């Protein structure tokens, strides 16, 4: 007897479909994405001026010149949409509170990978609408240093994807924390603090002084902004940078899988 289609291993094509739906779900909010790109551009301009003033006072600081600093600044703004640099959580947290999580847990796929595929779809859409326009405006207004080699572009693309996975891993843990805490606002705000500061979003991590800089560059948040930006600027050893990101992505996904197992036992379905 042939296995009916629905019983075949659902893995790749299922997650590809969820990825597509994640993309299309966010594509429904085009006006919001354009507005976000506008805001990111305005902030990029404001922050660029501050960095220009610093690098004019200290030319060559941390191995960056003014063009590198401006490029870095617009890249951070470009990453806000796809990587949710302002912390945040997943729809999942809301579903834990409303009880809809019960439906998610019986779906034919792992909750972790299901959410990841959906989030990658979201990131892909936001990359097109919220990452490319601010970067182009920055290039026109201030001049941006684009990579010259194809290899750098390829490494950058990979680095951005892993960055999104790291960001997802962190947000997934934040979202699952609401299984235990009921109200995840507190965890969300802590995540906001850590993400904005330790990703390189506010200032490049390369100018953090002493041990603070060493610590910041070793934490997972660095994989979200600082590392992909350094890959783009050609300031990083490519293999090392990608390995650093991949290590954190794997560790966070493993933690997410463990947390999902614990949550399955914890979850209380309130009968209807």
């Amino acid at each position: 007897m042939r296995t009916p289609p629905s019983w075949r291993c659902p893995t790749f094509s299922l997650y590809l479909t969820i990825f597509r739906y994640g993309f299309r779900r966010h594509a429904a909010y085009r006006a919001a994405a354009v507005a976000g790109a506008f805001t990111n551009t305005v902030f990029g301009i404001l922050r660029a001026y501050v960095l220009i003033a610093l690098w004019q006072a200290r030319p060559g600081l941390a191995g960056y010149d003014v063009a590198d600093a401006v490029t870095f600044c617009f890249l951070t703004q470009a990453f806000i949409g796809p990587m949710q640099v302002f912390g945040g959580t997943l729809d999942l947290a809301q579903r834990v509170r409303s009880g809809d999580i019960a439906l998610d847990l019986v779906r034919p796929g792992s909750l972790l990978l299901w959410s990841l595929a959906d989030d990658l779809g979201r990131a892909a859409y936001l990359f097109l609408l919220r990452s490319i326009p601010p970067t182009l405006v920055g290039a026109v207004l201030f001049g941006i240093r684009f990579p010259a080699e194809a290899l750098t572009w390829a490494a950058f693309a990979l680095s951005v994807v892993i960055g999104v996975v790291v960001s997802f891993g962190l947000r997934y843990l934040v979202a699952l924390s609401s299984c235990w805490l009921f109200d995840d606002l507190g965890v969300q705000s802590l995540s906001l603090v850590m993400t904005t500061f330790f990703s390189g979003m506010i200032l490049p991590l390369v100018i953090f002084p002493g041990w603070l800089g060493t610590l910041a560059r070793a934490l997972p948040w660095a994989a979200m902004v600082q590392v992909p930006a350094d890959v783009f600027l050609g300031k990083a050893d490519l293999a090392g940078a990608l390995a650093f990101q991949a290590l954190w992505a794997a560790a966070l996904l493993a933690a997410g899988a463990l947390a999902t197992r614990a949550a399955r036992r914890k979850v209380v379905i309130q009968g209807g």
Partner: protein
Amino acid sequence: MTDLVRTYVLLAYTWVRAAAQYPVSLAITTVAAFLVTALDVAAIAVIFTHTRSLAGFTLLEVMFLYGTAGLSFAIADLLFGNVDRLSQHVRAGTFDAMLIRPASPFVQMAVERFAFHRVGRIAQAGVVLAIALPGLEVPWRRAWMIPVMVVCGIVIFTALWTLGGALQFLLTDAPEVANAFTYGGGQLTQYPLSVYGDDLVRGVTFIVPLAFVNWQPALYVLGRPDPLGLPHLLRFLSPAAALALACVAALAWRAGLRRYRSTGS
């Protein structure tokens, strides 16, 4: 007017009590609000580990600019920042409910989900100002300007939030545009305007009067010449700028309210 204030206080108190049902979350969010804004100061501190002056201003002077603007921004955000959720209410249809209640829709919008934890930001800006002021040795004959500029700043930011809310009657699907002016304004005023390009400074002096939140009055308090050579008189015009922007915002809000059409859901 007293009616509006009484409604506001009553509703705010209700929301605070609601938030206090999750005391741990309330404590964490308040501390986090303090920390998140403290990061901006941390950024300023990191910048000044590498240089002694930024665009001609010292660390204490930048902290003074940051503290005054931060105080205005945080108070305006606590009291009226929620107006920028208008589009959510329009889309969900909950704005209709506000229109039929016997209270001003503006007050209801402003106080909806009153975010008590934002006092963390006010405290943070206050701390920065308190650290910066003794070191600056501002003479008393110029210090009177400090409370005036903070109040004018509150009015200007409140007017910006109201304009942002009014804009959402038009751009219901794109509320984030307003953030560029409200949060963007908060970001812009953290640093001396001499950091930014000359055209940008003229724009925020004569079009969106953000220069009157802290920059122009601070030049007076600190006794500094205007890097752009703009008229000396501008330093005293913050109240006029705040009043003018408030009038524009009130007109825009009313115009938005008049053309509002319910989504019908």
